[in-house]
């Protein structure tokens, strides 16, 4: 996989000016795994949207093609790094992830359910928080910084083994109050530009805002490899950028607000396939 990197990164990506509509295209990963990129909106969203659409449908032809084959997907290089970390002992207990969890493939089906309620913690936890719980409480290792290299790479590895499975986060029961908080944040018009997530990603997906083709702002594709910064990016970092762009005081990755927002935004994509690591502009 690594030998292809140079060629991939050297490619010059021409910006194809997208037309208003999302493309009519289907994504089959590595010619074997069908990825659901458009499906009926989950019940809680049916008043606002008929269909939910992956951000993949709003990207250009070359970008879409890169994501369909792992050999062309630069995000997979970071997954490889995390696969190595999975096997590597770290911390005072001398354990690696694999000491307890065996093959990383045993984690298939985990990513689609996160963020989720954690009974012991008494709160909603993201996948990164769960990984850090294992590191600090079971391995005697230091917590990874939120959305930082090692954490985001491992999140991508955990996501990669769940690709093709439908996002399915629980929004009721004990998770409900965090979900409500996330929903409130989604519809709040922040900053000096007074824009909410919904203004751009619910009311205007498919439209151009200056040079950007607006998608529904789904997170089924996270972590995302961005051509813009040539690394994996976490959902919280993306939220941070979008809020900053409303000329607002933003929140920090890992904050309670972003945990709640992640749960809510993930739930808007219930039914779409897990795609991470995906490729976006």
């Amino acid at each position: 996989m690594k030998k292809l990197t140079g060629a991939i990164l050297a490619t010059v990506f021409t910006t194809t000016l997208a037309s208003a509509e999302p493309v009519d295209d289907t994504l089959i990963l590595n010619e074997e795994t069908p990825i659901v990129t458009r499906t009926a909106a989950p019940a809680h969203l049916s008043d606002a949207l008929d269909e939910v659409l992956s951000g993949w449908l709003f990207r250009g032809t070359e970008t879409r093609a890169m994501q369909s084959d792992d050999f062309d997907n630069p995000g997979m290089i970071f997954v490889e790094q995390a696969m190595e970390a999975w096997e590597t002992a770290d911390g005072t207990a001398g354990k690696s992830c694999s000491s307890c969890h065996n093959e990383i493939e045993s984690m298939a089906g985990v990513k689609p359910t996160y963020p989720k309620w954690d009974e012991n913690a008494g709160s909603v936890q993201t996948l990164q928080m769960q990984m850090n719980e294992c590191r600090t409480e079971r391995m005697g290792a230091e917590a990874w910084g939120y959305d930082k290299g090692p954490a985001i790479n491992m999140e991508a590895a955990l996501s990669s083994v769940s690709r093709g499975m439908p996002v399915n986060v629980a929004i009721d029961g004990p998770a409900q109050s965090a979900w409500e908080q996330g929903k409130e944040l989604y519809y709040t018009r922040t900053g000096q530009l007074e824009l909410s997530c919904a203004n751009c990603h619910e009311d205007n997906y498919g439209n151009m805002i200056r040079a950007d083709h607006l998608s529904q702002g789904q997170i089924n594709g996270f972590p995302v490899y961005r051509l813009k910064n040539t690394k994996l990016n976490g959902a919280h970092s993306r939220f941070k950028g979008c809020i900053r762009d409303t000329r607002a005081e933003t929140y920090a990755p890992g904050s309670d607000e972003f945990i709640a927002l992640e749960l809510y935004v993930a739930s808007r994509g219930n039914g779409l396939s897990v795609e991470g690591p995906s490729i976006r502009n």
Partner: protein
Amino acid sequence: MKNCFIGAAIGAMIATGLHAEEVLPTNVAFNDGAIEQSLSGAPGDPNNGRIIVGDKGQGNCVACHEVTDLADVPFHGEIGPMLDGAGDRWSEAELRGIVANAKIMFEGSMMPSFYKTEGFIRPGNAYTGEAADDTFGPLLSAQQIEDVVAYLVTLKEE
């Protein structure tokens, strides 16, 4: 001596006079979404207004609106209506009201309020992601609003 006093008094009158003519963002009087009076007290410059409408760092109106007259500026958005003919559809006072605070003319509009300094949720310090500090001001100055309005008035369909 006497002349000196008179001169100073007139100077002061002119200074306060000019000042009184600039309407502060918190003092704007809307009439059905329109603003009759110039916000700066001076006429607008349509050439500068044209630059402001297309410039990413100023009005950035083309982020949301297409304007045929600005075809030399790349990437026009399609969130709001095309601005061609805006000078036929709206009076100068209405255009001033729309640019200063479109939410009064169009309830709940997605268009930002360009001459407003209060009532924001988590206002930031420009695009830094940090909280606003005491340098916080309206998105466009009174004169910039006048320049933009002067430009919009020229957008007539032949």
